[in-house]
């Protein structure tokens, strides 16, 4: 489903964020991406939904070769990928409800379904009472959950979650993890960057550890940790 072949990424300021990454993630896998701050986790994930282009190497997502993809096709690839951004990226001038429904409107979902499904996912992440608030009227954790709601609203075949529990208390984090597990159970691939040792160790999945832009460990039902 997601495949990287010898992927390198150097940013324009000369930082080598990824250095020869080879990896294959199958449909329906649940992958934790761990590694120290600045290791390249976000860069890895940005490659998948093509916010960032590799300097070298090839990336395949859902059968598309991202390197050869025409610009016009990108939105259609992204529609099958739900992204929880590390910095949330909510549209600042519209309500939480509209932020989530926007993602559905963008794929021209029927109006009635938009209403129903938007309220559904917002309820799942516990923001039922906050639907009319603007993003800057929410607490950090609430914004993070709004970002999660938007990522899952279209039932994408892949979910990319960049530290989706960084601003959440342990209980809420667990709720979110369970939500993702359930979605995974129904067939969605999940790639989740996280620093949360408890979750990684208690809910064992495949763990890919990145350090200094390289995959240093790739273990099924692995533990949290990257120094090998």
């Amino acid at each position, binding site marked *: 489903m997601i495949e990287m072949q010898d992927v390198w990424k150097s940013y324009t300021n000369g930082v080598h964020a990824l250095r020869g990454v080879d990896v294959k993630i199958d449909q329906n896998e649940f992958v934790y991406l761990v590694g120290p701050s600045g290791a390249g986790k976000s860069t890895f994930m940005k490659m998948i*939904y093509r*916010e960032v282009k590799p300097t070298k190497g090839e990336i395949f997502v859902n059968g598309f070769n991202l390197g050869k993809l025409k*610009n*016009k096709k*990108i*939105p*259609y690839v*992204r*529609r099958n*990928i739900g*992204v929880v*951004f590390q910095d949330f*990226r*909510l*549209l*600042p*001038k*519209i309500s939480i409800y509209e932020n989530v429904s*926007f*993602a559905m*409107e*963008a*794929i*021209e979902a029927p*109006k009635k379904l938009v209403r129903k499904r938007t309220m559904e996912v917002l309820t799942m992440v516990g923001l039922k009472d906050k639907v009319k608030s603007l993003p800057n009227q929410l607490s950090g954790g609430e914004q993070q959950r709004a970002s999660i709601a*938007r990522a899952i609203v*279209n039932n994408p075949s892949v979910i990319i979650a960049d530290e989706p529990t960084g601003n959440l208390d342990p209980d809420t984090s667990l709720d979110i993890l369970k939500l993702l597990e359930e979605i995974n159970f129904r067939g969605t691939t999940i790639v989740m960057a996280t620093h949360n040792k408890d979750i990684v160790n208690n809910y064992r999945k495949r763990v890919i550890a990145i350090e200094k832009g390289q995959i240093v460990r790739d273990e099924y039902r692995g533990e949290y940790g990257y120094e090998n």
Partner: protein
Amino acid sequence: MKISTLGRHVREGIKSVFRNGWMSFASISVIAISLFILGAFVILTLNVNHLSKTVEEQVEISVYLDVVESEEQINVIQTEIATIPEVSSITFVPKDEGLETLSEGMGELDLTEYFGESNPLPDKFTLKANKPENVDIVVSKVEAINDKFEMMPIEQVDYGKKTVEQLLAFTSGIRTVSIAIVAGLAFTAMFFISNTIKLTIISRNREISIMKLVGATNGFIRWPFFIEGFMLGLIGSIIPTGVLLYGYWKLIDFEESTVFGVTQWEYLPLNQLTFQLIFLLCSIGIIIGVWGSIISMRKFLRV
């Protein structure tokens, strides 16, 4: 695109005008003021053209007759002149009248008193050409009449060659300058409008890139901006058009009332510029509004 999606775009575009309240206000005022100035100059230019045309049409040709012509001969000559197709009007000015006019030209000094009965001036015809450019043709055709008569009844044909040439040079100069000013102002207005719209859109680059990352196509993102630009342009051009047309109407009304009128000249009637003004201002406002939004977004859409 589904119809319901189009509906969504229109709604979002209009909502966005209100959401970006201050920015929308800034854009609309820039559009309105630029177009107001442009429109005022367009009206001025059209009037100057109108005025020069009126002035040009008043160029007269004087045909002085030999002193000894009889009334009968005068009639013959008049008929002869009347056959020239480029002549639009003929007036006979007997020598007494000529002296009076001359006398008036001298200020308040009464010339008739000096000359008494012994008026030395010749009789003359005053002609007008149908177009200012045809004055020369008329002159030569009138001069050619002399050849038809033995006694050469026409003493001299005079149309203030130098004055007419200066006048034509002046009016065509004024026309060129005013068109240049209007063109310059039109470009300036376009620059200001697109510039302001660019500024308002640049501040929304993050929003645009988020939309893209969430899977929206360029078209989907562009539509509401398109509608928004259209609305800003529409509102921003309707206001100055309305104000200018109303103001011009009031001005004509005021000037044409014999009691208060200050200026002498004849204004271009309102209905002769209404359509041009609406068309010019609204098309600049709306096209640049829309174009400005679309162009400014372009680079942010490449995410």
